[in-house]
């Protein structure tokens, strides 16, 4: 706990470092933030390994009786993940920050953003949690607006982001206050003690409110609309932190309140969580294949990954309430392991996307391409993270997805049909989402980085600063390590799952580097698998050197003998995703229009044909637009009443006063 407090203090100091002159300000502040993350990481890992709970209480710093921090394994796991991504993001932003990002507000907000991210999991009273939550929301909003002068959409994104974060925070506050009111004290220990005594309807209302708030932060579908707008517009280290750390705090919230404070509660809660996960996974993956803006693709993929985690959490909750603690532990461990893995590969992907955007000046996949040769390091790191997302064997994504699937499979022995159906739907969602994610990331890698440069910007790309590459490397490392030896991390994750859901603390995996499920028949040894793959590659390479002709020649790529082969003949991202759009056309409802401009002389000769395809968010169009237009209409009506006459305003208040008195009488 002391290490964590030291870390938070260092974070605050980093914020103070903004006072330095411009060229000193960014490096010093970032290094301090990195130091803070290292301290927090060490504190969290020590806590995870030892497993004992430590608390800290500083009275009178805040009106509602001070800040209350409690470090238990669940909090420690999320702090460790956040600290790791924060460390990499801090190193990255040393090389990345330029222009508006070096302003005082940007530096202070970045430092406070990381500090509040580290503080949220440790908060153990309603006031502290909300304080840290709001600080996180406000600082990330400021960072989102850092570059609004250069990009107008940043304003629009900030508006959406601000509105939905505050609405979410309000829902969380309402839910927690409802609980605090019924348990006579606003710190979590009191709530935890009184939870069983609170009646089920009250607990359900509180859980639903809290779920709304945290699910919107985790990007669950009906409440996800801010995510594909905010992440692309934020500076890359910030969007890496958002996707890697901030989004998983939504998951943390659901587990902490639903599992820990309300002690599991009722079955239908967790079926709702699972349903949210299923819808998010499918919707996110589908839109990832349809978006041709690299960062928007990554944002939708975050929604998809968080959907998978919600499926794991929902399954764990459902299995626990229907009395299958062992299967529940497996699902919960799978979900938490996936959160850790997701933080590292999604963070690395966003940093790499930022590097590509910095080098070429664009994020649009249809205008990228051919970055493999000039930006070899970035391409390799993006490739490692992308293969991890697609869940291919030696990488961390595969271990995560395998655990998730085993968790769902071994839940089938359950009895209640509702759970079994839910688990089956979960498996289907997992499968389709995995397939769609593969399409999305082959598109991102193949069209974004490989092939020939489609625009002048892409052609002149040059490798980015060494600190940026170092940061990407740091985040790419766990993509491989967690994939090769997941067994080493599982005991710690199991301790966190136990703290979250009060499940049997025995780790669901037999100790060892691989994943050998204890109590269930299923195992994989990723390390040996990796050795086998390397051996296979080596054997094939050797036989070819012996047997095959080693002469190699470079020639023009075969395009059925065309005279001139330009880069424009390559497939674009829109074209790559078009078949899937056609298959899922009633979900995505793309609006593509075709304009044929005929030659002046005669209609039979066309001068130019332009085809444009736009897929905007179906949920946003069908759910949010009507609500917004209704509010806008109400706004115009209210505007007419405000015509600047003082008397009219006074009359309003007078009439109101009289009405109140009449009502009182």
């Amino acid at each position, binding site marked *: 706990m002391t290490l964590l407090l030291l870390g938070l203090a260092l974070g605050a100091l980093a914020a103070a470092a903004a006072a330095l002159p411009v060229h000193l300000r960014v490096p010093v502040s970032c290094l301090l933030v990195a130091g803070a993350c290292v301290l927090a990481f060490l504190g969290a890992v020590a806590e995870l390994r030892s497993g004992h709970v430590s608390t800290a209480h500083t009275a009178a710093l805040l009106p509602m009786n001070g800040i209350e921090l409690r470090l238990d394994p669940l909090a420690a796991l999320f702090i460790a993940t956040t600290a790791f991504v924060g460390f990499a993001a801090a190193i990255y932003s040393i090389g990345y920050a330029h222009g508006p990002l070096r302003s005082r507000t940007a530096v202070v907000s970045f430092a406070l953003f990381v500090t509040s991210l580290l503080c949220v999991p440790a908060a153990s009273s309603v006031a502290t949690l909300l304080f840290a939550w709001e600080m996180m929301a406000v600082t990330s909003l400021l960072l989102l607006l850092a570059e609004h002068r250069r990009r107008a959409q940043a304003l629009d994104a900030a508006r959406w982001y601000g509105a939905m974060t505050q609405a979410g925070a309000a829902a969380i506050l309402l839910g927690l206050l409802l609980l605090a009111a019924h348990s006579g004290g606003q710190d979590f220990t009191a709530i935890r003690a009184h939870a069983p005594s609170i009646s089920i309807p009250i607990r359900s209302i509180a859980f639903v409110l809290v779920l709304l708030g945290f699910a919107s932060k985790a990007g669950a579908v009906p409440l996800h609309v801010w995510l594909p707008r905010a992440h692309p517009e934020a500076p890359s280290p910030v969007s890496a932190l958002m996707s890697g750390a901030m989004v998983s705090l939504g998951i943390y919230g659901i587990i902490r309140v639903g599992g820990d404070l309300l002690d599991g509660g009722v079955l239908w809660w967790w079926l709702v969580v699972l349903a949210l996960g299923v819808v998010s996974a499918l919707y996110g993956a589908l839109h990832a*294949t349809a978006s041709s803006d690299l960062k928007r693709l990554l944002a939708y993929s975050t929604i998809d990954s968080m959907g998978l985690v919600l499926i794991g959490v929902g399954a764990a909750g459902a299995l626990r309430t229907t009395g299958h603690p062992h299967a529940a532990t497996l699902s919960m461990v799978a979900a938490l392991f996936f959160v850790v893995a997701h933080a590292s590969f999604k963070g690395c992907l966003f940093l790499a996307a930022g590097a590509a955007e910095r080098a070429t000046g664009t994020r649009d996949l249809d205008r990228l391409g*051919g970055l*493999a*040769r000039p930006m*070899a390091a970035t391409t390799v790191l993006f490739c490692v993270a992308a293969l991890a997302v*697609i*869940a*291919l*064997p030696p990488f961390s994504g595969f271990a995560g997805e*395998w655990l998730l*699937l085993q968790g769902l*499979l071994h839940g*089938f022995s359950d009895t209640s049909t509702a759970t079994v159906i839910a688990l*089956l739907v979960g*498996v*289907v969602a997992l499968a*389709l989402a*995995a*397939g769609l994610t593969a*399409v999305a990331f*082959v*598109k991102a890698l*193949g*069209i974004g980085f*490989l*092939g*020939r440069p489609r625009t002048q910007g892409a052609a002149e790309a040059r490798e980015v600063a060494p600190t940026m590459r170092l940061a990407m490397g740091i985040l790419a490392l766990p993509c491989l390590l967690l994939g090769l030896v997941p067994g080493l991390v599982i005991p710690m994750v199991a301790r966190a799952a136990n703290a979250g859901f009060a499940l049997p603390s025995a780790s669901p995996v*037999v100790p060892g580097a691989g994943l*050998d499920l204890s109590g*269930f*028949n*299923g*195992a*994989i*040894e990723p390390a040996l*698998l990796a050795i*086998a*793959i390397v051996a*296979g*590659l080596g*054997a*094939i390479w050797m036989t*070819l050197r012996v047997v*095959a*002709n080693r*002469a*190699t*020649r*470079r*020639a023009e*790529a*075969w395009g059925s003998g065309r005279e001139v*082969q330009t880069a424009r*003949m*390559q*497939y674009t991202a829109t*074209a790559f995703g078009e*078949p*899937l759009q*056609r298959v899922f056309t009633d979900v995505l409802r793309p609006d593509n229009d075709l304009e044929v401009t005929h030659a002046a002389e005669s209609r039979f000769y066309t001068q130019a044909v332009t085809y444009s395809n736009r897929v905007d968010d179906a949920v946003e169009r069908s759910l949010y637009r009507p609500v917004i237009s209704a509010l806008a209409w109400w706004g115009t009506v209210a505007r007419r009443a405000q015509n600047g006459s003082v008397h009219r305003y006074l009359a309003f208040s007078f009439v109101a006063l009289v009405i109140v008195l009449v009502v009182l009488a």
Partner: protein
Amino acid sequence: MTATVSTVHVWSGIAISVVQVIALVLGAPLALGLMAKVRARVEGRVGAPIRQPLLDLRKLLTKERVHAEHASAALPIVPFVVAASVVVAVAISPLISTSPALSESADLLVVVSLLLAGSVALAIGGLDTGTAFGGMGASRAMTIGALAEPALLVAVVALAIQAGSTNLPAIVAGTLAHPAWAASPERLLALGALSIVVLAETGRLPVDNPSTHLELTMIHEAMVLEYAGPDLALVTVGQAMRLGLLVALIANLFFPWGVATSFSPAAIAIGLVALGLKVTVIVVVIALVEVRTAKLRLFRVPELLAGGFVLAVLAVVTGLVTR
């Protein structure tokens, strides 16, 4: 399930894996040759000899490699990844015996992911060439792969529910122990779903026509237009072994008799012969089906895969109901 693995077992496991790999490296092209022969005879032609694919591969190895000038370092690696992923999948799957090397991690999901790794590598190679055909092939192949994934995984779930685990040797041994499983309705439904998925994954008719010359109709072929000589040999062997492996898995999962459960050389020999017989029968059936069917329009393929998916879900539901 952590068997005390003595060194003898480990070495004999590796030996079995090596035998399996060699059997598939030689056997799979022969299977393709057999399919071509059956197709030729049905069309009234004498057709190339069954060993023709092997001759083609031997000749390809003597030719030089040609790399596209704009391609990055990814293109030359792709053939190796495609071949290696299939080789490892074959090495650990229970084709001849239920305990090749690494058999405890011979999970059906691992095999599926290794094959996915192969197709992802091919797609990335296709995009890296910088030509229209590579992109087109990659886009179509990945789309069909994505749509086939649910049917594949739900079929795996159906098998796992019945056998209690997704571990392949466990399922095969379980079926050997309970012959009733092989004929159970969920096993047959899962067979239907898996065979549809196999047709889609390996690019056979009615999903994709391997011997088409018109680039616009290609799905798999368009991605490999760029490979020459040894690269093409690797990719072709990889594709052939992918078909051989999937066919062998379907054979062993639904008709496991003959698969060796002990390490005695006799059992291994029987396993090899049984595998050859089973694969030959299935391959001939596939060839006969192919001759009679025409290629589906690209956007009719999702309906086929949706059918496979429904079969798989039915398999799971019947499995749960009758349990």
